[in-house]
């Protein structure tokens, strides 16, 4: 990512003044001045989300509509994902791939009655919109939604909170969406998130965002959480962060995202291939890859962070950490890493190099903390 612009040039979300009022520590992120934590601190905000409900401002992310009857088929030319078969108000995880099978961005796609609703990463949104316009604008209208905010209410109490303010929303199951009125404010919510917990992501007009945030924060189970807790939560949930676990040099197969490629888009499927990098991805589906993304847990106390080398018994580098910290819920060092496929099986003992010392770790199945999605 490019250097951060000076504070004056930083973009602000519609909740910026609320963050400042709440005493948030603000940091530059993807060109935005964003809350990394509030006075409670990252650990408390992380626990808040695992135990009750946390409210995150993710308005920096890109929201885009693809409008037109051909939108789903058009989008399928850019992602190895079944969009055509997605039912109305169903949501799916997707990946923009490049010609080498690398990942340009990951995104969420929700089919609405008359359009597709996309949520893309903040740091990629300008490039994503340009990519959509350059490739499929002749088949559907590409409509960015800069006048919308995005709030994430996450945690085991999220459903009770939302159910109190908008009873119909508590009937949603994981990866479905619905229009709703929460505390008198019109919005579109999906039952989804980036923490491993049950919860909702709520798209709302920018002018209503602060009123919605205040209404949610007024509920006794809810407290604000910043990007710091969002990162530890998603890491424990084993979820990829663009620019860390996934980028243009990693493929969906290496990243352990094979599940995101539905059968209908794989060889033998009705709409197999037809997306950038299909040759490489299909070869890797059949033959495997030389490296894989894995989860590692350490038994010593030092965090193993991004960039740390992973070595085998002989001290030969066989991988690299892409994200790592002390998992506040796990209570141990947790890391996501790419390692040689031969050493990627759960239970494999490996060492991480931390400040010149070897620290023993073990490959474990992901996620580190169980997902608690509401599947009905």
């Amino acid at each position, binding site marked *: 990512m490019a250097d951060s612009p000076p504070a004056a040039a930083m973009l602000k979300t519609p909740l910026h003044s609320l963050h400042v009022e709440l005493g948030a520590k603000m940091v530059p992120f993807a060109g935005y001045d964003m809350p990394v934590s509030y006075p409670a601190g990252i650990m408390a905000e992380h626990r808040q989300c695992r135990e009750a409900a946390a409210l995150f401002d993710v308005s920096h992310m890109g929201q885009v509509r693809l409008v037109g009857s051909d939108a789903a088929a058009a989008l399928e030319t850019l992602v190895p994902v079944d969009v055509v078969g997605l039912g109305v108000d169903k949501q799916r995880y997707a990946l923009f791939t490049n010609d080498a099978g690398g990942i340009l961005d990951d995104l969420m796609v929700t089919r609405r009655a008359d359009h597709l609703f996309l949520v893309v990463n903040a740091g990629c949104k300008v490039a994503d919109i340009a990519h959509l316009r350059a490739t499929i604008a002749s088949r559907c209208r590409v409509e960015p939604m800069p006048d919308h905010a995005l709030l994430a209410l996450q945690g085991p109490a999220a459903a009770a909170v939302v159910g109190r303010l908008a009873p119909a929303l508590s009937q949603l199951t994981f990866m479905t969406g619905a229009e709703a009125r929460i505390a008198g404010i019109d919005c579109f919510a999906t039952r989804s998130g980036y923490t491993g917990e049950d919860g909702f992501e709520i798209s709302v007009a920018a002018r209503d965002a602060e009123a919605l945030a205040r209404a949610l924060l007024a509920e006794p189970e809810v407290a604000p959480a910043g990007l710091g807790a969002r990162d530890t939560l998603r890491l424990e949930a084993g979820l990829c962060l663009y620019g860390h676990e996934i980028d243009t040099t990693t493929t969906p197969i290496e990243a352990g995202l094979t599940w995101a490629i539905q059968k209908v888009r794989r060889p033998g499927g009705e709409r197999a291939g037809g997306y950038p990098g299909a040759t490489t991805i299909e070869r890797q589906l059949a033959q495997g890859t030389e490296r894989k993304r894995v989860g590692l847990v350490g038994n010593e*106390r*030092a965090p193993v962070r991004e960039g740390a080398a992973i070595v085998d018994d002989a001290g030969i580098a066989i991988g690299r950490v892409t994200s790592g910290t002390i998992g506040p819920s796990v209570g141990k060092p947790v890391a996501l890493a790419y390692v040689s496929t031969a050493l990627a099986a759960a239970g494999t003992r490996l060492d991480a190099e931390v400040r010149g010392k070897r620290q023993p770790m073990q490959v474990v199945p992901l996620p580190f903390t169980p997902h608690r999605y509401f599947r009905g």
Partner: protein
Amino acid sequence: MPVLYTSDHEWIATGDADAATVGITTHAQDALGDVVFVDLPAVGTTFKKGEVAGVVESVKAAADLYMPIGGEVVEVNEALRADPSLANSDPLGAGWFFKVRPSDASETASLLDQAAYDALVKEA
């Protein structure tokens, strides 16, 4: 007890001439956030002023701990090793890091006094 500061946000209490106590400041722990790990030097190790003598890590970041003055480490805070959150809850007291026998007491001359450190933090 005289307390002096570095521009790297360590403090050193020099009341005991043979065992000056070193820790991180309130400002430092606040900037780091929740401290989850400290790497303390081995007792008996000698460092020069400005050398890295330890590491303090929060959930979000790792920071080096620099020697405020040269000398030999004579004691480390095992309670802090066991509970790194002491660096947040009591950075100037129970969250101390280690004690050092200064090799040259005159090195404290270049450290910041309370007023100078307060001004530095206010500026930041």
